[in-house]
């Protein structure tokens, strides 16, 4: 072996803990790996490409006339709703793919490397923000094509888009948790859908809350998705940042604070 003996790999400093800086760097490397994988298998972007297009068309024309009398009048209500629903649904795929990825031998190597335990997870989740961005841009573009002209202006729409992406990233920790503890990828899909369906539909995403029975209204009001949708509407349609914006971000932080450690622990225990 004519390997030089003086590369940094041989100057090991034996430590039992990773520093924060190292953890962040390793997570970014894992995210880079995720991006490369997306680049190699673009077909896995199928869902984030077509779902926004089809959902926007479907919901706008199915509900538009019935609820607001006209499609154009419905757009400011529905586009933020669809945006939140579509992008959050996309985050399920994160859990499913994590499960598939973890079943492969390469994860054994990641586990055997002296890297932060959170890096493979955080990296995968970080790379998936690309998917959310694609879904966000496509939904907004579809809205624009259908005639949606948000009054909040471009800058507020961008803030709204970032808010949705951040919240979806936070939600994806929940699905990542299922991804880590589930036995098969399809069961991850099943459980996640079961949680997400009531969350996204029993909200103010698609229909005015007033039309629902009281007990359902109560749920709609506590549902974090409703707050997110309201925050997006306020930003995009009025250019205002209100309490719902803060509630959404706090909610996202709480989800990450609970599910990131849970997921990492489950990830370490698996095996």
């Amino acid at each position, binding site marked *: *072996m*004519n*390997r030089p*003996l003086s*590369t*940094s*790999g*041989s*100057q*090991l400093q*034996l*430590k*039992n*803990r*990773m520093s924060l800086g*190292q953890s962040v760097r*390793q997570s970014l*490397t*894992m995210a*880079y*790996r995720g991006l*490369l*994988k997306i680049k*190699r*298998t673009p077909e896995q972007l199928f869902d984030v490409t077509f779902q926004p297009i089809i959902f926007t068309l479907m919901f706008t024309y199915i509900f538009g006339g019935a609820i607001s009398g006209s499609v154009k009048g419905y757009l400011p209500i529905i586009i933020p709703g669809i945006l939140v629903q579509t992008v959050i649904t996309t985050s399920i795929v994160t859990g499913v793919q994590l499960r598939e990825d973890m079943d*492969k*031998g*390469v994860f*054994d*190597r*990641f*586990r*055997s*490397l*002296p*890297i932060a335990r959170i*890096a493979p997870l955080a990296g995968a989740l970080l790379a998936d923000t690309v998917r959310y961005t694609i879904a966000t841009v496509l939904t907004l573009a579809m809205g624009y094509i259908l005639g949606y002209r948000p009054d909040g202006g471009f800058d507020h729409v961008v803030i709204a888009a970032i808010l949705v992406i951040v919240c979806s990233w936070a939600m994806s920790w929940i699905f990542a948790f299922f991804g880590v503890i589930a036995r098969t990828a399809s069961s991850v899909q099943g459980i996640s859908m079961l949680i997400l369906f009531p969350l996204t539909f029993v909200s103010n995403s698609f229909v005015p809350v007033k039309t629902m029975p009281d007990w359902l209204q109560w749920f709609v009001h506590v549902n974090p998705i409703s707050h997110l949708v309201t925050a997006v509407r306020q930003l995009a349609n009025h250019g205002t940042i209100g309490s719902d914006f803060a509630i959404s971000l706090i909610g996202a932080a709480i989800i990450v604070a609970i599910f990131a450690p849970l997921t990492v622990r489950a990830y370490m225990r698996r*095996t």
Partner: protein
Amino acid sequence: MDRVLRSVPDGYDWAIEARGLVKIFGDNRAVDGVNLNVRAGTIYGVLGPNGAGKTTTIKMLATLLRPDGGSARIFGHDVVKEAQIVRQLIGVTGQYASVDETLSAMENLVIFSRLLGLGRKEARRKASELLEEFGLTEAAKRPLKHFSGGMRRRLDLAASLIAQPPLIFLDEPTTGLDPRTRAQMWDTIRRLVKTGSTVLLTTQYLDEADQLADRIAVIDRGRVIAEGTADELKASVGTSSLQLRVQNQGDIETARQMVERMLKVRAIVSPEAGKITAPIADADRVADLLITLREAGIRLAEMSVQKPTLDEVFLTITGHGVEDDAKKASHAPDGVEAM
């Protein structure tokens, strides 16, 4: 030797010290009290049939699985309490490809290098260096999907060497390789040890352990049933062994009893081949045995005397053939006293 001394506590003799390792899956004691001592700078072979617990043992030593009992130290560091330190001292090449299928060889190595703390440039340099060394430069950019089994195996090994770890685990490094590629892999492993690394490898190929390993542990059903140098193991079986094939399959059991009575050793029958194998402790008795067989009317189809191979060692110690299913051999004696 340089790098080993730098990354390992000074003068630490033992790369691996495992005491009573246990791993239980459900009610299956996959590893059932394994003890291993591996001296730094040597090649250690773990030999055993399918399902013996080789992979499970390696996974516990490599911090991938938490032991249910016992303890293990890598260069003096506990695999459970100091897992992150242990990970800095080892490289693992798993039984199944532990590289990323969708990425190219170059990308794989760069990512692992970056994770290990190399800078962008350094990572590329290290990756090219390893690709060159393992003869993969030409295929560096191709996705692994189109790699042959041998190329994949080499890349896998290359990925374990990025940090130049003082201890390398190789789980069945040559399974599925053609004889030429296998010989190349053997050379690579030998060179690794020359640079000061310690290697623990598992194998089902007895000649592989014989060729490569300084010491060998034979494990079966989660237990170490024999340990020593290849020569010691062979010596424990007797100098040579006698192989007999009877013409009439019906006679095989009677013949076995005669062999055991006459040679005063345990004989092993492999029914598929209709073959009886027994160690020859005293060559003089073989003549008596042949006469007795003739007198009993048992006709032989073939007779040969063989120098012991590790195959025989295995057969003798475990009491069942390598290919034997564990269940089929459940009647076999414990075999430990054969040592």
